[in-house]
Each structure stands twice: as C-alpha cells, then as structure tokens.
C-alpha cells in the first residue's frame, strides 16, 4: 500500500519522469481511483516540503459557466451571451450550456460564405472535461458553474511547457496495454461489458478429430453456406495455375531441405472459444514459451509427399494470388490475415480427388540462425478429408504454422521472410514420432489460443 511513496519518489523526484494516474495504476496494479488518491497524497506531501519540486496537472469535469459578455436581450435564467461562433474553431462548451433567445448569428467561416445558424440548435446539455496545469487550476475552476469531479491527472517534476508531453507517460505502457487492459480490467477500474463478443471462428475447421470420423461438427456445417458466398466460389471450374503462390512454394521447399532433418512440430490442442486478446506477436512469443511435442519426418518421405502434393496442387485452384491481394493494405500481411483468406479458399475446394490422409505441405518459412542451428516457424498446408452431413467426402486444406529447428543453416528462405525475434527462442529438438496423423494436426488456432 505504501509502496506508492517509494515508486513516485523514484519516478518523479529522482528520475524526473511523468507519472499519470493511469501509468501509476498499471505499474502498481491498483484501481485508478486509488491511483488518483495516491497522486494527490504524494503531491500534497511533497509540495508541503518543497513546492518547487513537483508539479501536478488536474482533470476537472462539470458544467461550464456561460462566458461573461454583458450585452444581452432579456436572458433566460442565468444566461446571456449571444456570441459568435467561428466555424473553423471549436464551439466552446460554455456556449452549449445555455438556452438563449433567438438571434441572428453571423458566422465567420473559412469560406466566404456566411452561415445562418439557429442558436438553439447548438444547444444541448453539456459537460466539459478540462485538463489544467497546477497554476491554471483556480482560473479554470472559476469557469465552472458546477464541478462534478476533479482529480490529479499527472505528477511531474516541473510544469510541462508542452502539455502534450503527458502522452508519453501513457505511451510507456501503451505497447502492452491491450493485453493488460483485457485481462486485468476490473483491477484498474475499467468499465466492464458482459456482452463483449469476439470471433468464435478463429479457425475455419475445428481441431478435434470428430470431423474425420465422418461427423462434422455443427460449426463446420454452419460455415459452409458462408463459404459458398465467397467470391471465389462464383468462378468457373478451377484451372491449374503454375504461378500460384502455393504451387511455387511446393516446388521450392523440397530442394532447400537437407536430408534427415529433425523437425519440431507443435500440434495445437487449444480451442479458443473464449475471447483471447493476443495478437500475432503475442502468439509467437507464447509459442516459444511452451516446449512442444516434436515430431520427426524423414526427408525421403517428405520429398515423396511433396511430389504428390505438387500434383495435387495442380488440381486445386488456389486463387491465392487474388485473395492475398485483398489483404495487401497491410504493410506486412500478418499470418492471420493470410490464413483467413486461405481458409475461405481452402473451404471452397471440395474435391474427391484428394482422399488421402492428411499430408503436410510446406509453404513459407520464417527462420533465424543462431549458433549454427536454424530455427523458426513455417507455414504448412495440410489436407484433411472427412465425410460431411450429406455423406460427401470433403477435403480441406488448412494453413498451419509449425516451429522447427535444423542443424545447419539453409539457403535463403522463401519469399516471405520475416526475421522474428520471438521465433529464435523456439524450443529445442525434442523428438517424437509422427507421421502426420490427423489427430496430431494443428491449425491456425495456435495463433489465437493462449498457451
């Protein structure tokens, strides 16, 4: 409880930092109300010792008094003030507080036009929230007719010349604020919303093995009509596209694979029905934290499979080029974005040609080289076949990220290389046998699930 004195003394007095009630509440994990009181108490204590040593800013809320212009027609209770509004400048809240007699208001606009504004239409009940420095406080208080609340906004060693610098204090925790806000809201006093809804379908296909047994879950059934309205479905019969990103990826990767490579693969077992607040970076980091079960796959088997997949790829129209272009607005198309599109894409593919058991395919790699070991993550396309409600066999392709590590540095990675600090921390080669059986398959759920 009293640690705030130490914390504030260090931050404000010694290090000369700005501390806002928000940054204090995040740092000490206390309710913002308590943080405001702490700032107040600390400020009172320190300014009693040395008023020069510390400066505060305050946030006030209430109803502003109308501006004191004296000329007036008989005003309604407690108001006067026909005033002129500059169009290009804010309407002062004080303006809005009061009913006023109808007057012709001349507007000074940045256009040569003069607007006629009926004053009553700018009227509404209004409260104002004003941020004031310590030395402005009394003056600002005078402007208020009624103050609803007032609290210390921030403490700093000296009055800031540019008050906008206060934002930097908020910026210090803003990098991870989303995560902390989401998980720890009630502690900080953020308003809760019981109705919050996030994506239930983060991954298009459920992870469980149920679909493979010929009984697709209700969720995947529900998705099918949605998938059918995807633009890609309206296109005519699939054509082989030698230049599609999928096919080219398949062609390249086997060549770059050294023989007898131990692969660490991380199956995904979490189903993120619950809202998760992690973004992609979080995900990568958390991937690295947990030691995953690993699998080994011989290169011979892989090249054989890759060859078969190259054939399959020819059968499958992967308009991924066009689809990916949609996400091009993002600077670096994040895996999740790409996967979304791929999902729609993959779901559109319903061919009985691919009845094989799921086969992993390599798509892209994000790798880093440390201490002679090559570690990273790569995106893999896997196939799953199952019987749907109507008895049709449905084959789906899923994109999946798996981490791996190899003994020697590989040649230049494929086109989408992203050096990720998080991926360097991926786990060591714990070996576990796997032939890519369906139950071992993961999915993009791994991106959103908490580890």
């Amino acid at each position, binding site marked *: *409880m009293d640690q705030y004195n130490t914390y504030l003394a260090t931050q404000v007095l010694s290090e000369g930092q700005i501390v806002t009630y928000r940054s204090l509440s995040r740092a000490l994990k206390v309710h913002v109300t308590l943080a405001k009181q702490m700032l107040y108490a600390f400020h009172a204590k320190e300014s009693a010792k040395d008023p020069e040593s510390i400066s505060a800013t305050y946030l006030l809320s209430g109803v502003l008094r109308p501006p004191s212009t004296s000329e007036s027609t008989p005003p309604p209770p407690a108001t006067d003030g026909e005033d002129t509004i500059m169009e290009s400048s804010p309407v002062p809240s004080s303006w809005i507080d009061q009913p006023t007699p109808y007057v012709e*208001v001349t507007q*000074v606009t940045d256009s040569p036009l003069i607007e*006629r504004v009926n004053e009553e239409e700018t009227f509404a009940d209004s409260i104002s929230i004003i941020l004031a*420095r310590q030395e402005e406080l009394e003056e600002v208080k005078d402007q208020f007719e009624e103050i609803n609340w007032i609290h210390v906004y921030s403490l700093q060693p000296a009055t800031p010349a540019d008050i906008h610098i206060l934002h930097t204090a908020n910026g210090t925790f803003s990098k991870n604020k989303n995560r902390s806000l989401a998980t720890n809201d009630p502690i900080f006093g953020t308003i809760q919303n019981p109705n919050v809804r996030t994506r239930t379908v983060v991954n298009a296909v459920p992870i469980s093995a149920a679909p493979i047994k010929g009984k697709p879950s209700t969720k995947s059934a529900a998705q099918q009509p949605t998938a059918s309205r995807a*633009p890609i479905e309206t296109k005519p019969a699939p054509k082989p596209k030698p230049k599609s990103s999928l096919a080219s990826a398949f062609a390249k990767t086997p060549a770059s694979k050294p023989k007898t490579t131990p692969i660490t693969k991380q199956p995904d077992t979490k189903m993120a029905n619950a809202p998760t607040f992690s973004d992609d970076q979080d995900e990568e980091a958390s991937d690295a934290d947990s030691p995953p079960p690993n699998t080994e796959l011989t290169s011979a088997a892989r090249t054989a499979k890759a060859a078969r997949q190259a054939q399959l790829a020819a059968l499958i129209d992967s308009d991924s080029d066009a689809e990916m272009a949609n996400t091009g607005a993002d600077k670096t198309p994040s895996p999740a974005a790409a996967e979304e599109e791929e999902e729609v894409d993959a779901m559109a593919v319903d061919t009985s040609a691919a009845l094989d058991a799921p086969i992993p395919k390599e798509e892209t790699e994000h790798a880093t080289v440390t201490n002679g070991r090559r570690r990273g993550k790569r995106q893999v396309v896997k196939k799953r076949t199952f019987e749907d409600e109507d008895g049709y066999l449905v084959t789906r392709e899923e994109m999946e990220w798996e981490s791996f590590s190899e003994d020697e540095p590989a040649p230049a990675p494929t086109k989408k290389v992203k050096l990720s600090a998080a991926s360097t921390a991926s786990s060591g080669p714990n070996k576990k046998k796997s032939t890519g059986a369906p139950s071992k398959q993961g999915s993009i759920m791994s991106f959103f699930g908490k580890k």
Partner: protein
Amino acid sequence: MATVDQYMRAPQPAQIPTVSRPESTYHSLTTFNLPTGGDRKYSTQFADLYFARLALLKRHVEATVHAAWKDFDLDGERATAVERVLDVRQGELSWVIGTIFMDMKLKPNILDDIIKEAFIIAPPPRETYRNGDKGDRIVIEDESGRLPITGKFLHEFLLCTGCIVGILGTENKNGEFEVIDIKPADLPAQPPRWNLHNLSLKEAGEKPIKAKKAKGKIAIVSGLAMDGHFSDVLLLDMLQEYLLGETGGAQESSQISRLIIAGNSFADMAPIPTREVMMKNGSKSFSAEPNTWNADPTEEVDDFLASLLPTLPITLLPGVSDPTSVSMPQPALHSAMFSKSRLFIRHPTEPENALSWFDSVSNPWDGEIDGWKVLATGGQPVNDMNKYVNGGNRLDMMESILRWRNVAPTAPDTLWTYPYDTDDPFVLRECPHLYIVGDQPQFQTRTITGPSGQSVRLVAVPSFRKTGTLVLVDGETLEVSTVQFAIASEHKKQRNAQRSVSAQNTPKRKPRPKPNTPKNMPKRNGATKRV
C-alpha cells in the same frame, strides 16, 4: 461516494464496485455495400443513376404534389399536372416533376483540370460553386429534356443538383418556367421501433418484443484525425480514458453502450491525393507508392480501437480522409488494417447474422441501434451540398436531404460516386429515427417531423480533433447531450478569440422576430419542432 473530493484525499483502499455497461441492441444493414469482385463495374454511364433515381422517386413526389396542388387556384386558373418537362405550355399554370440541375460557372470541370496541369497559375480550389448568382442557371430535367427555371421565389428554396422535386408555376415568354412553389417527396414511411430486431427474433423463432427500454447512450464522434505522429494527442487520450471509465465519473461514461465513429479516423490517408497535394509534391502518379507507405496512422487507430473494444462495441464509418475508396458509397475500412481490433470483427466464415462487436461499415451506413433506425454518413454529401448553397445551415441541408429522400443528391455530379446502373441506393426507402452526419463545422441538432407523424433527430457532429466534442444520444429518448474535452491553456485562447470576434460582430446582430422560419428552408408540410 460521488463527492467532488472523492479523488482528492489520502488513499483509502476500499472495495470499489465494478461498473458495467448496458447492452446495445444492434443490427447492421448492408444497403450501401458495393458488389464484390468482378460484379463491381466501372464501365457504366452515370446518366443511368439519374434515370433510376427519377423512376424511383417520381411517383412519391407525384403523390405529395398532387395532394398539395390539386386545388391550387391562381386568379381563377386551376393548376394542372404536366407529365413531361417539355410538355409545359406557355402561360398555363401547371406543375411538373423532374431532377434539378444547377449549371454553375465554378463547378469542377474536366477542362479546368487540364488547365491546372498545363499552366502554372491554377485557379484556387472552390469553397463554393456559387458565383454571386451571376451566370448560374438552374434547370429541371427529365427523360424528355430540360427546362430552365426562374422566378423571384426561387432563392427561398434550398436546391442543389440531383434533387427530385415538383415545381408549380408557368412558363414565361422567354421559355423559362416561373416558379411559384417547390415541393419535395417529403419523408418516407418510418418503420416502427424495434422493427429489425423483431424481424430477427422472428427469424430465430422467438417472440417479438413489444416495448423494450434501452438503458444506454449512443456516443458519436467524428474526425479523430490520427496521423501517427502522436503529437497533440492528449485530447484523444482523454477521450479514450473517459470512454474506458478511468477518468472520474465512471458511472456517467458507463451509460455509453456504443460508439459510432462517423468518418475521418485518419488525418490524411485518402488513397488518391487531391490535385493540389500532387502539384505540391511534384508527383505525377495517382497511385500510392509502396516505399513511402507509413503504417503508423493505421497502428495508432488500431491501438485506439483495440483498447476500447473489450468494453465498448464500435461502429466505424469511413470518411473523406480515410484509406478506402474515395467514391460514395465508401466501402468499409478493411479488417486487415486492424490487426488487433480484428478479433472483434465477425469472421468471414461465421454466419452473416452473427453480430460484429467491432463493425467496420460502409459510408453511408444504415442500421438499427436500440430499436431506432439510424442513418449515418461521414459528411461528404452535406459538405458537397454546402458548396451549392449560399450560406445554408447544415441542419437545413440535412433536413432537405431527408425530405428529398436522397442521401447523396449531388452524386454523381460533383460527388464521386460508384456508377450504379439499375438502382440508386442513395434513394431513401425508409425514414430513419436518427440521422447522423460527421465532419461538420460545429455541433448542431434538431428534430424534424413528417406529414405522417415521422420524427427524425438530426445530429451534425463536428471534428473531434478541432472541437473536442463527443456527442451522446440517449438510446431511449433520442435526447442529445455533449461532452466537451479541452486543455485549459488552449481552451483559454479559444475563449479569448471568440470574445474578440464577438465584439467585432456585435453591430451586425439583430434579433430575429420569428425563430421558426429560416428563410432558406424548403417549404414543407410538416412543422419543424426544435428541441
């Protein structure tokens, strides 16, 4: 607990109750969504839009006009209806229905654009298309042809290109139509409250509700204008903290059940730079250059939204400076831009009736919030219309837009528009209860009523970055209040500026005898109730 000194005392650790928000009943419509993929065609002519609009609206105008003018009698002469514009006979008192077109000297012109590129001294950008009424011509047109209109009453009516009206008068010897009166179609039928909600309940096999109270308030903001520089962002911080309920008065902000962002979340991210910007930069290409792409604004907006979303559902409309298409209707801002907020958007494979907690929607947009039919735009139609009007009140323009039943009347003439061929989705089919227009110079509100008991709350929302205004609309009563954010040092400057301006302008003011009839309003059937 809610005393002024609640926060100004020594820390007292106590169990502070958690505050939560009321539910926002929400249904989003896709009226203004463009066709996707290959169905989106830009090869059709814009003229089709005018034909479609006239065909859709003519019978409605006819009904209104017939009721109003069938007994119109001028010196013993009865007014008659004329089917087509070119059938008007000289000297006969008659009425005709058509599309207004305003031929104005200062309107954008493709030839002007070429002049600008070829010569160094370019004409300045237009704040208005009005040229002191010199050389501006107003005509009414339909499929048959055009008829110039004139008359000393004409200036009493608010008109702009593209509105469909009925005009009453006679043709004079110059071949011009002397106008006595002008009538729009007036407000369309208004759906009952909870209409969409009940429809969706019916679909789900549940019982429709008769009366439900909405407890929350709808917060509306426009012009957050984030530029990724993080300068002057303290107002945004204050807004964010207020909405999260972390500033004082959490009880008060916990009443907010939904946030609508009505355009211009980005400061300057429109994909096509204006001609003026291009001239300045010396760039000859319209396309965005990938090497100069700056992701900071996107991240700033994403962070802002993502911090609010766990506690507040958001409807996001694009505006004129946002990175989406520049032509109306603007498609929703793409979810790929919001890597953190995206989690709250409905997944493409989820059923379409699933609620999007974060709803990135088109501009204009319509839907139902707390049972009220809502129509919202990022402000372009009204701002463009303002250029046609000699000093109009923005609320008058908003009112006219609804009475003309046309959400974007100046499209496609001076407002960039998708070339619809068979339909005009801007034609208003249902009267909203709440009409929100973003990017306006100042906050204004008014309630208008229609001939068959419709009642619409108009709200003009100013830019937050310029005014610090957050508008709150009560979900039950549609009463409007505002929250003003300000920083004391800057606030003081503004107040002083206003005082000096007001001192200068004092002599110009004169009391207005009758408050209820601004001169430039279209005459209308329904009375206007001001609240």
